[in-house]
């Protein structure tokens, strides 16, 4: 029981990270109907930029933890958003209107490029970061097992909730959010009504990348080590989360992320760590087979 509760805490933390990445997949899929294969690598770049900012701040003498965290978050979001912008501009925009699989293939190329770019620019070695926040709260003192929630986990969960709230407000209340939803429903009609579709799509990528940067920073804080390859597996899992939640649905992405995080954590805790990726990949296949529109997704019919 204690053990399961601890796994629940761990799984929720991990699920928050997946949910943040999954939002990027689901937004892009909703608006232009493509799988942004390079999104996992944008997340990895967010983690690297966070790492570099932490070191920079440390060298600059800013060591007060709350200030450092907020600054790093801001820097990582800005620069990673720029990556999202550049990727869309270089690899996807010229292909709009091309045949359906062209953007996917281009995205695979972009993913390979980003991975190797970071490998060449920053080295292939694993990069460690000293724990920024330590300590935690004991939730339950059992006989043999103590359930704790670390300060880091609290920060991750709280930050994610705040970011998600802001994000939801942007989509629901601002003109930009309205334009995004309009483009998702009917691009041609949106264009006729004076919405700059290209700009809206660009901003979708920018927001998706900024969310991925938050996820990257949380990943860095949580695990303490990153390398240039983390984006691939995290990306596939986050995509699984997006599909599980119903691709195109924003609450679905977060829900799917949480579920994937929980399933993975419980699988590792009770079955085997080696096969935890198999668990996530199998869920992807099973969801697509039996519930292709996901938990909260719309069911769409292919028309002639």
């Amino acid at each position, binding site marked *: 029981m204690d053990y399961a509760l601890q796994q629940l805490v761990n799984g929720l933390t991990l699920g928050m990270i997946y949910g943040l990445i999954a939002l990027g997949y689901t937004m892009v899929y909703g608006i232009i109907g493509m799988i942004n294969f390079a999104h996992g690598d944008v997340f990895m770049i967010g983690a690297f930029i966070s790492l570099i900012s932490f070191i920079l701040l440390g060298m600059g003498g800013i060591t007060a933890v709350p200030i450092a965290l907020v600054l790093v978050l801001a820097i990582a979001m800005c620069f990673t958003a720029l990556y999202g912008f550049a990727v869309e501009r270089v690899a996807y925009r010229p292909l709009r209107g091309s045949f359906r699989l062209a953007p996917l293939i281009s995205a695979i190329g972009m993913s390979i490029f980003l991975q190797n770019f970071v*490998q060449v620019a920053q080295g292939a070695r694993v990069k460690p970061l000293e724990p920024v926040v330590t300590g935690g709260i004991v939730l339950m003192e059992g006989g043999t097992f103590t359930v704790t929630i670390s300060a880091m986990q609290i920060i991750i969960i709280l930050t994610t909730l705040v970011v998600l709230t802001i994000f939801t407000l942007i989509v629901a209340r601002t003109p930009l959010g309205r334009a995004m939803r309009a483009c998702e429903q009917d691009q041609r009609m949106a264009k006729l009504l004076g919405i700059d579709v290209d700009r809206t799509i660009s901003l979708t990528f920018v927001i998706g990348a900024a969310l991925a940067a938050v996820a990257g920073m949380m990943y860095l804080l949580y695990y303490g080590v990153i390398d240039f390859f983390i984006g691939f597996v995290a990306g596939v899992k986050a995509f699984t989360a997006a*599909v599980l939640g119903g691709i195109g649905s924003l609450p679905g992405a977060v829900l799917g992320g949480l579920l994937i995080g929980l399933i993975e954590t419980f699988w590792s805790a009770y079955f085997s760590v080696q096969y935890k990726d198999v668990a996530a990949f199998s869920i992807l296949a099973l969801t697509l087979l039996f519930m292709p529109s996901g938990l909260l997704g719309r069911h769409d019919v292919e028309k002639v």
Partner: protein
Amino acid sequence: MAQAGFPAIVKDAGLAALVALGVGAPLLGLQTVPGERGLDLVTRPGLLLATVCAVFVGRLLLGLFLANRRSAARSAARRAADAPPRIGLTPMQRVGKMVAPAFLALAVLMPVLPGIGRYEIDLGTLVLTYVMLGWGLNIVVGLAGLLDLGYVAFYAVGAYGYALLAKFFDLSFWAALPLTGLLAAAWGIILGFPVLRLRGDYLAIVTLAFGEIIRVVLLNWTSLTGGPNGMSGIPRPTFFGLPFSMSGGEGTFAGFFGLEPSPIHRVMFLYYIILALALITNFVTIRLRRHPVGRAWEALREDEIASRALGLSVVAVKLTAFATGAMFGGFAGAFFATRQGFISPESFTFIESALILAIVVLGGMGSQLGVAIAATLMIGGFEVFRGLDEYRMLVFGLAMVAIMVWRPRGLISSREPSVSLGARRNVGAEHVAEGKG
């Protein structure tokens, strides 16, 4: 799109350079290096500056080039509108008809040409392996229009299938070869059966997931596959029962034919095996295209809904394509295992799938000759830049994007349809999109 005046182009290049500065600043301008405690940072302003300048100049040249081409294209379009429609083969297609036999002759004679050593034959074998894989995947992607990102799984099934058959049942390469093909085809059906109802890009991701699952299982099932250490001591192929041995004894290849024993014999033999396997793949593909099954594949690629309306069993048609492609992947895998004598899960990563897919895409999905040329260019290019290991993958990724942007239909961008009613029109790669959205 801004009007293509010179100031606009300069402004555009300036903006691109600004973005490059922002993108490059954290990752190129600063590098993390292991320091005394934790990581330290070093600055690299020179590299950053060079990159920004390169982006500026590149974007400027591109802008000028595009502006030029746009005005040229406008006048060309005006001329084309007046010209009568072209009938029959274009000059390019006529040259194309000569290229294939020339390639074939070169491939057959390559090992015995003067000045060709062991290294060249080995490289030729590698290229032909990828040609075969490209042709195998071409059945799935190019003909049936199903994007398979996990093709390497079948390659792995073939390789491990042969290694295990040799280890546990003591089968020789020739006895095991048909079995590995069957095994891979069976896996193609097992994996394909549930997923083939999915739409194009979902199918791509699920096949990718299956490829990864197979790799993870190979990596962790240590008792059967040796895990990360792989399997070694895989038996080499024999020439009708005559092994290639350096002893030169009565029962060996060299001894039987009264030749001086030399390691080059086996290298050449392996080369001809893969050449034969690749040609079989090609031959079967060309024949199948005229077969009802092949026609059904292409019909499915053109329009899934129409095919279904005409009574084709979509799942069965897709399964045959998947299984046929998988079978050739399995053959290639068995060959890979016997050539290397050692296999490990390292050889079957996602990047291999991406490489094979890139060959098919660059070759112009559906074109046999294009795939062969693309494999030669790609593997040859990799070999030339072997010294720059990290950079070649960097360029590979960028090249994939660039091909999609500039030439999304590949090198051989169109071909005559296998069957057509009335006027013949060329088939473009845009049909490789099931359902067309």
